[in-house]
């Protein structure tokens, strides 16, 4: 199986690949934004109400443990087919690393620093916004980075519920026993994951305050 054959096939399908990659990016991106919008506040909430933290972490862990296909099957009756259930599933999977890293980032701060803040008369909110969050930001971003790479991977499943994305080529290729088609879907997905990982590792550095780099 000469490589040229694969490359030709990809060039032939370039229009498809570009459209599907676009869908893939859109689906993963929305899912990750939802996961951040839910996960970070949840992580913050856990530091304020430690009694719920193990419950929430357990829940996020449990969600992660649901097999992805079963999860999809469970979501279709609720959300139908298309992008909504895909986004719901991918956000649910992406939640754990975000919640976990937010929580550990916020609680892993040196006790002395927290005490200094309180001793100087910061309110809990001020301590959160002025000290905990800025200091935890690198850890939170590391969680987001893991979540994003996961999201790009899980979004291939979107093809199974009619939401498109690169999974369409992969699953079509598998059912047609067409390796070229599988590769035409898998390679862009892999490149996407690597590129996004790079972008986020850069962002991770960018949000790290200079004093704790």
């Amino acid at each position: 199986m000469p490589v040229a054959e694969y490359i030709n096939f990809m060039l032939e399908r370039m229009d498809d690949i570009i459209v599907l990659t676009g869908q893939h990016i859109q689906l993963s991106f929305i899912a990750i934004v939802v996961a951040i919008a839910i996960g970070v506040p949840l992580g913050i909430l856990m530091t304020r109400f430690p009694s719920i933290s193990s419950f929430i972490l357990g829940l996020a862990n449990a969600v992660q443990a649901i097999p992805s296909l079963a999860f999809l099957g469970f979501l279709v009756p609720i959300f139908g087919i298309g992008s909504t259930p895909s986004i719901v599933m991918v956000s649910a999977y992406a939640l754990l690393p975000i919640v976990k890293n937010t929580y550990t980032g916020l609680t892993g701060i040196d006790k002395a620093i927290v005490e200094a803040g309180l001793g100087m008369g910061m309110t809990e909110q001020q301590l959160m916004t002025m000290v905990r969050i800025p200091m935890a930001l690198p850890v939170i971003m590391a969680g987001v980075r893991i979540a994003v790479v996961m999201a790009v991977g899980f979004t291939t499943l979107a093809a199974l519920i009619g939401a498109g994305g690169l999974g369409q080529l992969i699953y079509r290729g598998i059912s047609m026993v067409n390796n070229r088609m599988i590769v035409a879907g898998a390679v862009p997905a892999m490149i996407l994951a690597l590129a996004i990982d790079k972008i986020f590792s850069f962002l991770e550095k960018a949000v790290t305050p200079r004093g704790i780099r």
Partner: protein
Amino acid sequence: MKRNLLMGISAVLITVLIASCGLGGGARRGATGDTIVVGSKNFTEQIIVGNMVADLIEAHTDLKVVRKMNLGGTSVCFEALKRSGANNGIDVYVEYTGTGLVNILGMEATTDPDKAYETVAKEFKDRWNIVWLEPLGFNNTFTLAVKEDFAREHKIETFSDLQKISDQLVLGGTMEFMERPDGYPGLKEKYDFKFKDTKSMDIGLRYTAITTGDVQVIDAFATDGLLVRHNLKILQDDKHFFPPYYAAPVIRQDVLEKYPQLKDILNQLASQISDEEMQKLNYLVDGEGKEAAEVAKEFLKEKGLI
């Protein structure tokens, strides 16, 4: 400071909500107008016949057709149909009588094709207000296949022939086949198969597995185009275990009421595709790499339906 944070978070949330509505709502908004959403499962035959259904509607009505092909399996399609195209689901797809009877209704299998069709038609109507249109003609039943030279060597024609040497063989089946009551569990009991080992795998991977010799027997669809390409022989179900799997469009009653012309349009397909024809169409896609949508369109033109 806290207020800023909260406002930031809510701004993000609102943006996301709007964005996801925009994404998911496309089909929904259209469907409340004059849109029909056609679905299919995720294997070649389904995508071909799904496209046929879509092409016919497009050719003979002014309705806008949205294609949701390649959905991950029976349950996704059926759940989507129950919701309707106007509600993030679909309005019509092609289902098999045997699957409807055993998988969806959870009833006993039957070997009588007419009885099977009558039962699913009645039950789907009563339970979900879903209508079975006329069958397309082919019977994509489950079957077992072995390599042609292997069959010649061991003089195997029927399932009963296979049973005699089954203790030396490994069976590879789709995950669905290995689990369904009308699949391997029932088959094993009926023929007393004693396979050395069984392996579940994805649809396409069975062919790879039998080619490399990891398994000697696979489950197959009678109309599967790849059987030809991989030199596989279909064995006879001499005790008639597998129920018939005649394919027919299933459509929501409310859609039919709104667009009564759809019934006649889709029934043009009735008995138009024989087992051989379906197998050939499948081969054009799986074996020769043609686009399923094109293969469907060509066929309809040939038959003078569009």
